[in-house]
């Protein structure tokens, strides 16, 4: 599939914005076009946050989308809100570590990944978003893992570069989990 309209949503602090930026950047590194559009506003402090990523071979016309082809729900309210907009046949990625209910849609592929648990295992709950990213890239093929690594390297340059190995490890673990489902 050459077109991806992705919504990534969760609580503020779960790293959904970064996840989206890496996907968008990686797609560009792979030679595709992309846009990343955040929900914004400091007034939303403590509320939910989400971003929309569109990846396309052609220049992206609309950065807003009606029916995402993929949704990543890092918490329950996000699953409810965006899961129901998901295109029939699309992917719904759910953070199974914190969401225990099921989405009632038979026409989409639901991928449950216990990302917090996996992240905890490799040593830091903070990289749960990277675990999800690994799984997402693995199954959607939205970008190559090389491009994802390059995008991440760019984001974590300078003082943050020490965090790179842990993040890459998390991505790898996420991808492995997704492959092994």
């Amino acid at each position, binding site marked *: 599939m050459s077109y991806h309209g992705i919504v990534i949503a969760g609580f503020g602090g779960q790293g959904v914005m970064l996840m989206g930026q890496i996907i968008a950047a990686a797609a560009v590194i792979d030679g595709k076009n992309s846009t990343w559009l955040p929900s914004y506003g*400091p*007034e939303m*402090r*403590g509320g939910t946050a989400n971003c929309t990523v569109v990846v396309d071979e052609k220049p992206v016309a609309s950065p807003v989308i009606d029916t995402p082809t993929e949704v990543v729900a890092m918490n329950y309210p996000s699953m409810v809100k965006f899961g129901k907009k998901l295109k029939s046949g699309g992917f719904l990625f759910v953070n199974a570590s914190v969401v225990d209910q099921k989405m009632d849609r038979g026409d989409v592929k639901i991928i449950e990944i216990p990302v917090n648990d996996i992240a905890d295992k490799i040593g830091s709950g903070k990289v749960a978003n990277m675990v999800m990213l690994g799984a997402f890239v693995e199954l959607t093929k939205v970008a190559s893992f090389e491009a994802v690594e390059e995008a991440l390297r760019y984001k974590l340059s300078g003082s943050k570069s020490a965090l790179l190995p842990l993040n890459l490890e998390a991505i790898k673990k996420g991808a492995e989990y997704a492959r092994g489902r």
Partner: protein
Amino acid sequence: METKIAFGGPKSLSGKEFTYCPGCHHGIVHRLIAEIIDELGIQGKTIMVAPVGCSVFAYEFFDVDGTVAPHGRALAVATGMKRALPDRVVFTYQGDGDLAAIGTAETVHAANRGEKLTTIFINNAVYGMTGGQMAPTTLLGQKTTTTPYGRRAKNDGYPVHISEMLSTMVGVAYLERVTVSTPQDIRNAKKAIRKAFLAQIKNIGFGLVEVLSTCPTNWGMSPVEAQRWLLENMTKEFPLKVFVDKVGD
């Protein structure tokens, strides 16, 4: 010994949950104001003017008539109200960007005219709502999103001292700088707020309380750390002090 409530929430709050970040001092100050409104028995005749800033929703948090003024103009809006309804109690609640930057002229002239108004001025040394930019009250050397190398006097000027500036004015009836970083500070702050309301109610003049407050989010500290930072740094630049007291006891 009978069971009774020693401390409970004031009824002049609407009960809506505050939208502030965890540990943000805005909430403490809201509660103190509501307690004073309760204690003075003025809930039914009080009108609040909220600012644009993190406390933009404050007009929803108090169970009194209210509005939100354009950024910086709360004291002009309040002046309009008070001139229309001189027997009501009108107060503004304003941040340091609101009151000490864009609203400077309105602040100075309301104070100087001696408008019978009460202003609670939250000095948290930063623009909270818009994401942590420099405020007029940002300390020298302090890093913010628009002073990434720390505030430098040469380029960015010096911290503005609103209370010192207003203390020169005849129209001011009560003026004090407080903080709410310890229980004792909170008790003092409440006394100050009471007097700032009495300055209005007794028709003496303009009352203002500057509250040195934390913004844990934009300071990048835990709420407890932020209080400590405030007590160690902000009170040096902005000493706690009664500047004007024409209210008496």
